[in-house]
């Protein structure tokens, strides 16, 4: 399951021939994810109910995003830079599958490059480009420079840093924005929406995180755990 790649059909046919187990590809970027889960439910006979649950949750999320996306006026759209890496410059630019949550939620990707990388590390940009792009908000993946960026002389003159509009993406069980681009992105939509446009995405993120965890993974997140997860979102 995942993003469509050219030649995937041939690859899977070959694999199937090799291992004798049926191999199927289900396109599962966020737009197709609920459909993918429904298909999965049909294929794996005894999981139909569960598949329907997940699919419904995903549909709900997508509708939420769509509705708010329509509602947010153009001039209020924020530009967001989604970055990672030990130097903070591995950005997932506009058009990359990792950054799909940004556009879905109603924001703009601040970084545009000529050739978008589909790799997890994204495109490496220079800090000058970041200054040029002047993002409203910067979100750092876990393991990046969120904790040190405010005292870094090269970064601290950025408007987003000066205004304190930079956050660390929650990382359990996986990065909520992407990496891998899977179910965790569902959390990403709820989280980023609430972060950027709380008047539209109007809910308490802590309890929402708890219900999402339960719905997606059947895991009961305690309030403290939820709060810890969201520590970098203030």
């Amino acid at each position, binding site marked *: 399951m995942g993003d469509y790649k050219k030649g995937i059909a041939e690859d899977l046919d070959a694999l199937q021939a090799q291992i004798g187990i049926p191999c199927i590809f289900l396109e599962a970027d966020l737009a197709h994810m609920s459909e993918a889960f429904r298909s999965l439910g049909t294929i794996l006979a005894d999981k139909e109910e569960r598949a329907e649950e997940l699919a419904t949750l995903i549909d709900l999320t997508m509708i939420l995003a769509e509705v708010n996306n329509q509602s947010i006026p153009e001039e209020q759209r924020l530009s967001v830079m989604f970055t990672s890496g030990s130097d903070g410059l*591995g950005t997932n630019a506009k058009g990359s599958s990792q950054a799909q949550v940004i556009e879905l939620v109603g924001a703009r990707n601040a970084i*545009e*490059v000529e050739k978008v990388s589909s790799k997890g590390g994204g495109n490496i940009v*220079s800090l*000058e480009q970041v*200054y040029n792009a002047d993002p409203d908000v910067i979100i750092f993946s876990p393991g990046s420079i969120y904790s040190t960026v405010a005292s870094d002389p090269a970064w601290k*003159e950025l408007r987003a840093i000066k205004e304190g509009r930079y956050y660390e993406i929650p990382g359990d069980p996986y990065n909520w924005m992407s990496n891998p681009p899977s179910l965790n992105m569902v959390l990403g939509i709820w989280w980023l929406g609430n972060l950027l446009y709380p008047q539209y995405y109007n809910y308490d993120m802590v309890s929402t995180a708890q219900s999402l965890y339960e719905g997606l993974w059947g895991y009961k997140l305690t309030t403290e755990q939820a709060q810890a997860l969201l520590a970098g979102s203030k």
Partner: protein
Amino acid sequence: MKYRTKLTLLCVSCLFVFIVSFFIGRYGIDFPTVLKILADRFVRLVTFGKLGLGQTWTAAQQSIVVNIRLPRIAASALVGAALATAGAAYQGMFRNPMVSPDILGASTGAGFGAALAILLGFSYSGITTMSFVFGMAAVLLAWLVSKSSRIQTTIAMVLAGVMVSSLFSAGTSFVKLVADTQSQLPAITYWLMGSLSSVKTADLHFALIPILIGLVPLFLLRWRINLLTVSEAEARSMGIETGRLRLLVIICATLMTSASVSISGMIGWVGLAIPHFCRLIFGQDYRRLIPCSALMGATFLMLVDNISRTITTAEIPLGILTAFIGAPVFLYLIITGGSARND
């Protein structure tokens, strides 16, 4: 053209490229402002912060010139000089104009150190340090192996270097195999291709000391390096103890190479091609070759880095650009047989 004139031209070019590099960058800053910021920095530097020009520019502009461009340009000059000088010295020591600073495994070792650090999730400065340490360790290993071998020293060193290089290269491949494909592997790959895009002032300070410790002795002993190019028997009969000089060259070149790779990743061809260019222009005498390689290496890498940061929106790794330029030069070397005109 006399040597003096050529040398002056080289110095002037180096300085020129250094200053012009500050005007290059994605974030547009007009020339007068850049000059004012630089002048202000210089004045503050020489007066220990007591005096400065009145600030007529934004904090962002200052940050970009001083915290982004300055470390980057200075680092490319430093790394270029270091790699070229190390290459020149090694070529003399191994009596072969086709030798590069990586002959004893410093770059491959440093590359492995960085890959391992990325795998283990070290911070940025952890990666730099680990890279430097492994670069030095690789050469130490090569040296120890060659010392305990019965084969004649120079050949033993080359063989040991090949062995150590493959060892660490295999190690790096293994690290790439087990690394997380989403985030770590791309980071490792990018790092290995060589880049100065995230060089900070701290990196500059880190690399400055080992590079200077390597450059200064090589500069002071530049005449004696000539003696390494004749056979051991001849050097000995001329009263020169070559063993110690060789060891010193290795230590200096290794310090410089490891430090360079630790902040800039693997940048090839500079150490091989620049000394050769210098030979063509300045002749074979190491009294000239050492300083001129350093200056030319600095100028070259500054120019290449300028290209790297302007040509596309995403950065082109330096190692790729130097290879595009260096490989044709090497081809030329092979065709002409490595010999040069004399001055």
